[in-house]
């Protein structure tokens, strides 16, 4: 009982710091705005982002009918933009979740079991880490084919090793603490110790890592789509820029180039600010900026 009270008061303490952190509040605000856009996309625009326009609707500048204009196929830019936030958020959250979960499981096992298992898992981690991330993602997505699921898989494959390392080193320090020895004394098994005793203690770290991972996953998706490796059935911001860039009209169609780039910038900024604020609360020495 006292334990849960402690946790609640700790949470209250964290929240009080968070409210004072201007960065964190701004970051959270940006994220919420994009989430609202993503959820209410069909309410905000009558257009289908993939539906081609009539011949007189090609490359029209912003107007009352198309508030951000149209692209070279007459598709509504504003519709592409708000539906694009769905792709970014979906890829960001799923890839970050998979990377962190996979990395945590591997880090927990490597750190707690130790010995040969640890050696083997860490060698595997090193190999993935030593490969240049973007070229590896490019090769994997070119080979797997263009789909949203594949993009998420590819970003996760590249993403897990770093979190495995971080979680492992955390486990190594937790493992020496008295309460783990106590658990072992009362006869708790390995599995129980890893998942019931150690795991809850690495959750805060996982969350802090996870938010920053979302930012980097969103960036990765944008670059891959810009390079023409995105899912053609789900227009994302990176893909909008790919279309605009390869159509050769960027000098003229500023309304096609500015919104997607600004959106990518803002959403990454949002997650970076929030992640940094959380990091500062949980681990005051490891702030990024």
């Amino acid at each position, binding site marked *: 009982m006292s334990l849960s009270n402690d946790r609640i008061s700790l949470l209250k303490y964290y929240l009080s710091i968070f409210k004072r952190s201007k960065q964190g509040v701004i970051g959270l605000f940006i994220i919420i705005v994009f989430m609202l856009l993503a959820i209410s996309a069909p309410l905000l625009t009558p257009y289908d982002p993939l539906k081609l326009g009539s011949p007189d609707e090609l490359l029209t500048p912003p107007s009352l009918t198309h508030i951000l204009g149209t692209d070279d196929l007459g598709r509504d830019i504003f519709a592409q933009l708000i539906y694009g936030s769905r792709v970014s958020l979906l890829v960001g959250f799923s890839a970050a979740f998979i990377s962190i979960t996979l990395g945590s499981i591997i880090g927990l096992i490597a750190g707690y079991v130790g010995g040969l298992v640890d050696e083997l898992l860490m060698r595997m981690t090193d190999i993935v880490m030593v*490969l240049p991330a*973007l070229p590896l993602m490019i090769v994997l997505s070119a080979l797997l084919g263009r789909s949203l699921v594949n993009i998420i898989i590819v970003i996760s494959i590249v993403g897990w090793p770093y979190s495995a390392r971080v979680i492992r080193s955390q486990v190594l320090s937790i493992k020496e603490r008295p309460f783990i020895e106590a658990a072992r004394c009362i006869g708790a098994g390995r599995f129980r110790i890893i998942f019931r005793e150690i795991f809850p203690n690495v959750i805060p770290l996982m969350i802090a890592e996870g938010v920053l991972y979302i930012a980097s996953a969103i960036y990765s998706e944008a670059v891959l789509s*810009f390079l023409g*490796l995105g899912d053609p059935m789900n227009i994302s911001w990176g893909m909008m820029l790919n279309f605009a860039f390869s159509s050769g009209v960027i000098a003229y169609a500023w309304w096609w180039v500015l919104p997607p*780039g600004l959106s990518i910038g803002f959403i*990454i900024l949002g997650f970076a600010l929030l992640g940094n604020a959380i990091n500062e609360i949980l681990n005051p020495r490891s702030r990024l900026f």
Partner: protein
Amino acid sequence: MSKGQVKYILKKVLSLLITLYIVITINFFLFRIMPGNAVRLMFLDPRVSKENIDLMMKKFGLDKPLWMQYLIYIRETVSGNLGISFWKNEPVINIIMSRLPQTIILLTIAIIVSTSLGIILGAYSAWRKGSLTDSVILGLSLITYSIPSFWNGILLLLVFSFWLNLFPLGGTGSIGISHASLMEQILDFAWHSTLPLITLILYYLGGYVMIMRNSMLDVLSEDYIVAAYAKGLSDKRILWRHAVRNALLPVTTVTALNFGWMIAGVIEVEVVFSWPGVGRLVYDAIIQRDYPLLQGAFLIIAISVIIANFISDIIYGFLDPRIRKG
């Protein structure tokens, strides 16, 4: 060299060789087993000439069982044969080698400028922590971190090439113009590389500023800085001779271990500015569905990154006395 140093280097060389072997193996299996099977596609691709198919069959033993193909692949890769491009019907290695110098030039200049600038800005920012300058530097770093660098490049292209007409749209030099002198050629190259370099430097800069600033903040709270003040040294001397020097180590580590991250920036920039380097080649290979070229480019990039990390690891080992003596 001491015994410890020789042992340190031998250990690193061994781990380098093992890593290279594993990377070559991964590359083989990626392109033979995954859905986009490069060999099967070669037979289907109308661009590949009959002679080249026969040549590939013979050279890589494509009619033999997979394990034998694997051994042949390793032998061929080690001797520099990376197969034949679907798109250009030329040996992949020749295409890559002709593109490599342009990427190295771009990368070298961008790394030198962005580390120096990052060190100066980061040091100053930490020194004047909480001031307006500090906030401006931090804000700009955060913005360059958030904005994708390919978009940054597109914006620069839009403003300076299309609207103001100050810089060319891409490439490394004006085509069809023979230069009167070497100087003129260099100037033409500089003119073409300005925007790509600015984009790349902006991509790297934010990271360096943050690392240097954090490292400086740690150093500035050390006892020896207080001691330096107590000795009556000037601010300037403390900043440059005592604080910056000691804060540099983390920056070198980051430079050393982040070639993978730097390559990512180069790919984005080369695509936007049609810079004929290896990054642009990766993009061309995707567009052209040229799998041998993609495989070769990936291998060369991965090997370069691994070797660059290896070299900086060795240099770092000599710089850091804790490793040197160990």
